[in-house]
């Protein structure tokens, strides 16, 4: 312990005596720390985002939709294909008890929405209360649709208030303008409190029972299933069928969350059976296996995380080689000192300890400096540069400092061994 303390004192004196050289070598390690912290925070960020996405979207997801290729494959078959009706949904539910979510969805386009003097274009989605179980990236004012609304085909609706779009380039803005036929509706909902009000959609009066406010883009996990819909108005699917918003020729899509990845394959088989029984062997409906896509997406993001972390490690390696270089140079510059110390009784291990402690101190200094710079880089600088800040957990700098110290230690072993191996008489003769 005393030896370690003495070595640390000497080490500090040496580092101080060679400020420039020391600064250069610990800068190398510091850069390593910065890259490491940056890459680690990026990984943690990705991971936490994925976790959030998993929570919001669920993993064991599948979706039943019409098979368009079957519908139009043969000229003789062109005609109204069979549709997935609400009755089919009910039958499916009966066949698959215990599912976390079975959410049918049908839509209508180009609806006329009237409120007071306002008359705007919009679209409307027919859903059930299950819709809110997944990908719910909203805050709700009022209430959401319930089973009472669905069973009684009530004319109630929930309006979606859009979040301001993320910063985007002029082209994207133009395109958004070009296709946003319901921009007037978005503005109307954004600037008026319609909760509890009566509105008219295609001539039918609906009561607004709730308003869903989209979370701002910065706080919203991306949709993990990759399935995006531009929801404007939600109403009971039964109501929309009853009032012919969703025509008898229109098929419902069904989003399913089995609730567990283990039962996923079994549920998928059961759904396939159900489709065969209900619609025959023609494969008129498809089951989109979203679980696999989600898994692939997660694997990809972890792969890129590994690439990032290996960059961080490479940076440390470069820093370590810098430390080795400096330590070796120090050994040669201080050969005479080594001789003197050996002459007055320092053992080989004393000499080794001295150089290793010195290098580890450089590593620690570099790690601390790098952590500070890493924090600056990760939060304010990246934000200022518009790269999006990466969250830095308290343990990241700690780990970075430890790795920096360990790298310095590992790379100082060889120079220290060289120093310890010098013969005292030879070392004393050095100039």
């Amino acid at each position: 312990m005393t030896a370690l303390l003495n070595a640390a004192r000497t080490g500090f004196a040496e580092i101080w005596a060679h400020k420039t050289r020391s600064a250069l070598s610990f800068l190398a390690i510091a850069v390593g720390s910065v890259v490491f912290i940056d890459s680690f925070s990026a990984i943690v960020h990705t991971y936490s985002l994925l976790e959030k996405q998993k929570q919001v979207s669920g993993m064991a997801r599948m979706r039943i939709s019409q098979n368009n290729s079957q519908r139009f494959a043969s000229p003789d078959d062109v005609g109204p294909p069979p549709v997935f009706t609400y009755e089919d949904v009910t039958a499916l539910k009966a066949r698959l008890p215990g599912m976390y979510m079975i959410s049918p969805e049908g839509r209508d386009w180009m609806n006329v929405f009237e409120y007071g003097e306002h008359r705007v274009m919009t679209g409307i989605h027919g859903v059930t209360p299950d819709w809110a179980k997944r990908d719910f990236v909203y805050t709700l004012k009022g209430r959401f649709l319930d089973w009472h609304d669905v069973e009684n085909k009530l004319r109630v609706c929930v309006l979606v208030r859009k979040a301001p779009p993320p910063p985007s380039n002029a082209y994207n803005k133009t395109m958004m303008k070009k296709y946003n036929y319901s921009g007037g509706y978005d503005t109307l909902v954004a600037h008026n409190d319609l909760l509890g009000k009566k509105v008219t959609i295609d001539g039918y009066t609906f009561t607004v029972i709730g308003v869903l406010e989209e979370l701002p883009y910065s706080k919203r996990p991306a949709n993990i299933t990759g399935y995006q819909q531009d929801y404007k108005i939600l109403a009971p699917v039964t109501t929309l069928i009853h009032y012919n918003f969703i025509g008898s020729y229109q098929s419902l899509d069904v989003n399913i969350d089995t609730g567990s990845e283990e039962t996923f394959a079994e549920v998928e088989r059961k759904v396939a059976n159900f489709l065969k029984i209900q619609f025959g062997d023609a494969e008129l409906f498809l089951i989109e296996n979203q679980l696999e896509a989600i898994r692939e997406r997660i694997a990809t993001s972890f792969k890129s995380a590994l690439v990032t972390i290996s960059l961080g490690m490479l940076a440390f390696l470069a820093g370590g080689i810098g430390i080795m270089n400096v330590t070796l140079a120090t050994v040669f510059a201080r050969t005479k000192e080594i001789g003197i110390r050996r002459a007055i009784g320092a053992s080989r291990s004393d000499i080794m300890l001295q150089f290793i402690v010195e290098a580890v101190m450089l590593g620690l200094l570099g790690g601390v400096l790098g952590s500070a710079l890493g924090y600056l880089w990760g939060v304010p600088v990246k934000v200022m540069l518009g790269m999006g800040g990466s969250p830095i957990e308290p343990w990241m700098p700690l780990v970075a400092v430890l790795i920096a110290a360990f790298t310095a230690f590992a790379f100082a072993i060889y120079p220290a061994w060289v120093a310890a191996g010098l013969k005292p008489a030879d070392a004393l003769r050095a100039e």
Partner: protein
Amino acid sequence: MSIACEDLTKVYEGGKAGWPALRGLTFSIAPGEFAAVTGPSGCGKSTLLNIIGLLDEPSGGRYALHGRDVTTMSDLERSTVRRDAIGFVFQSFHLLNRMSALENVCLPMLYAGADRPAARERAAALLKKVGLHGKEKKTPLELSGGERQRVAIARALSNSPKLILADEPTGNLDSVSSREIMDSLFALNAEGITVVMVTHDKELAARAGRNIRMRDGRIEP
């Protein structure tokens, strides 16, 4: 501390057969003796001193320090003997310039595992003994040659050695400082410490109780 060498040889590497620095020395030095080793440059004096001080290893022959065969010692044992039993005084002082005089004197004690306050206390006492009271905090570069050599003597004494090896201790000093340093060495010898000193100076050698004259790696009869 007794020194006994028998047919001691040292060959430096280089060339085909190497370069022989010592060609078979046989001599002994009794405990408490003051031995001067003299001879022209390149005759092997310093090599001999390095071997006696365990800084170098002989190529052949036998060397027993205080009755113990040195050639069988491990590096750690040799370091320990250097630290605890031998004090070195070099011509060019060999002090660590970045440290104060006090820290230089402390160093061997710290290697011996002494705790810092005790080491500093003893170092201050030793510096006082060699007449450097008040200059403890000065670095070697702020001291005169004579003062530096006195720091070196204080350092050599720090672990109470039984043998002091001095390699031309006055070689870089003026006559006044030389005399002071020699007086110190004789005083230490009077306390019972064996002193082996390499010197060019015949007058100094004459003051020593024993004179080992060397020429071409051999002892002159």
